């Protein structure tokens, strides 16, 4: 360091940065402007529809109530459509671009999202295999983060965990009867549990650390094991408990560090974040589940429980900033589809986007 003058330091830093200046991006800027305009039009349309519906309902209620006695029981308020899609998480139709805010009953249960001074950022939703029920992380009765389930239409919201500290990172089993999650239970040590939704009974599967990138369980397609992020990388462990097996990380599968793993619906592929030994990262990778054919693809963080499209051809993830990407795994083509912090697939044409 002593051999470099101030001017040399600044000149070298300048040259290092200049080497990374991208080529002409004017087209990108215009596309971003067009996308913003389109989103504004869509948002205006959603709000307009909401206002219209509210107005129609209000007029109808007023007309109905005129000449009648006031209701003697609790007033039934018309369903209020939440603010525009920029204010709440929303469902995005990839074919039409239509954005539908989540039902109010769901997003009312979401905030504040904190645990031990931390905030959940992405990864709070998981859809049941039959597409009827959404698990999500919300604010529980005791003021801590707990897992809830609800109909996708927002009906029947109910808390299904009562962890003394918090329950986060939900993922449904393939048969839709159990939910894996990261909880703390007594003693406050984080573990992965499997919850029987019908009985409410939670069974410990394996210990993990409190590090935010550890946990993130998902079921293998046959439902027998959990794929999760542990200290050694992306591993599997039998749901019934037992020894875990590292698939990617510490040199396994060609990866140095690995996390956020998610297995394709047919079990043939795994996508994850991480780096090759001594390689740059974190990057997004795809590999065969047996650890072969490791390759880098576009994209950044994802919600493991909702990463793969049901048809297994695409993944949804962020671009590392504020855009949601859909990446075709075979071609590597990445498409920006929305602004948001995270997203999961609801079906092959629909995403649930977290703002």
């Amino acid at each position: 360091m002593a051999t470099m003058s101030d001017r040399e330091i600044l000149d070298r830093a300048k040259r290092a940065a200049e080497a990374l200046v991208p080529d002409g991006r004017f087209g990108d800027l215009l596309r971003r402007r067009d996308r913003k305009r389109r989103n504004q039009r869509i948002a205006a349309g959603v709000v307009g529809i909401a206002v219209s519906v509210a107005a129609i309902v209000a007029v109808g209620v007023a007309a109905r109530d005129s000449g009648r006695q006031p209701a003697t029981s609790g007033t039934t308020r018309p369903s209020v459509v939440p603010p525009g899609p920029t204010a709440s998480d929303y469902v995005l139709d990839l074919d039409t671009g239509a954005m539908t805010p989540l039902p109010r009953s769901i997003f009312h249960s979401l905030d504040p999202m904190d645990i031990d001074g931390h905030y959940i950022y992405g990864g709070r939703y998981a859809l049941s295999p039959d597409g009827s029920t959404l698990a999500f992380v919300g604010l529980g009765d005791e003021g801590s983060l707990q897992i809830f389930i609800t109909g996708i239409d927002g009906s029947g919201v109910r808390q299904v965990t009562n962890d003394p500290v918090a329950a986060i990172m939900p993922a449904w089993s393939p048969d839709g009867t159990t939910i894996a999650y990261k909880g703390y239970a007594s003693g406050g040590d984080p573990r992965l549990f499997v919850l029987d939704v019908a009985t409410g009974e939670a069974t410990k599967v394996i210990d993990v650390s409190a590090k935010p990138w550890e946990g993130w369980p998902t079921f293998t397609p046959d439902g027998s094991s959990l794929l999760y992020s542990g200290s050694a990388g992306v591993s599997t462990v039998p749901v019934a408990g037992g020894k875990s097996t590292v698939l990617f990380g510490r040199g396994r599968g060609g990866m140095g560090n690995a996390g956020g793993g998610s297995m394709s619906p047919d079990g043939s592929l795994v996508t994850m974040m991480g780096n090759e030994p001594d390689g740059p990262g974190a990057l997004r990778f795809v590999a065969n589940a047996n650890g072969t054919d490791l390759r880098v693809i576009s994209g950044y963080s994802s919600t493991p429980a909702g990463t793969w499209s049901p048809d297994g051809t695409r993944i949804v993830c962020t671009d590392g900033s504020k855009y949601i990407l859909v990446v075709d795994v075979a071609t590597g083509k990445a498409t920006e589809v929305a602004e948001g912090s995270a997203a999961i697939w609801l079906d092959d044409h629909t995403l649930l986007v977290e703002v």
Partner: protein
Amino acid sequence: METQPSRVKLVREADEDDDASFESFFTAECPRLFRALLLLTGNLHEAEDLTQGAFLKLLERWDSLDRGADLEGYLFRTALNGYRSLYRRSRLATKRVLAPGQADLDPFEQVSAREHAVRLLLGLTRRQREAIVLTGIEGFDYRQTAALLGIREPTVRALVSQARARFAEGMDGDDE
């Protein structure tokens, strides 16, 4: 301190077509703004996003902007406001439970892990880095830099002086 000529004004006067003039402005200013933001953030994604965000704001107001205005200063102020907002959010984000792969990302690696000079620069406090990048690399004088950062000129001088001292002593302090 070397002062940059106002290329922006020349571009605006030379080109009557608004779309074409904006593209010229973008072409002339984008590399410089991106470079500055990259050195401030140490993150390619954030630098690109902030650069595009700043230009997008200008594009949306391009028709109504005064031809004689200091568009270069306007652009940098817009970008720096975005950067500061991002910085505040980033500090909050350190408390977040991040999605996998985000929490352990080393932003320095995204610039150049091997470029010691970049590491030295990114090791400064945010305010010192802003002052030294704008004056020592981007060619703004102290007065212009003070205006861009919304601080007094003597403060800029002090920050630049502190940055140079940190270079000399090996910067063993912590970032703010």
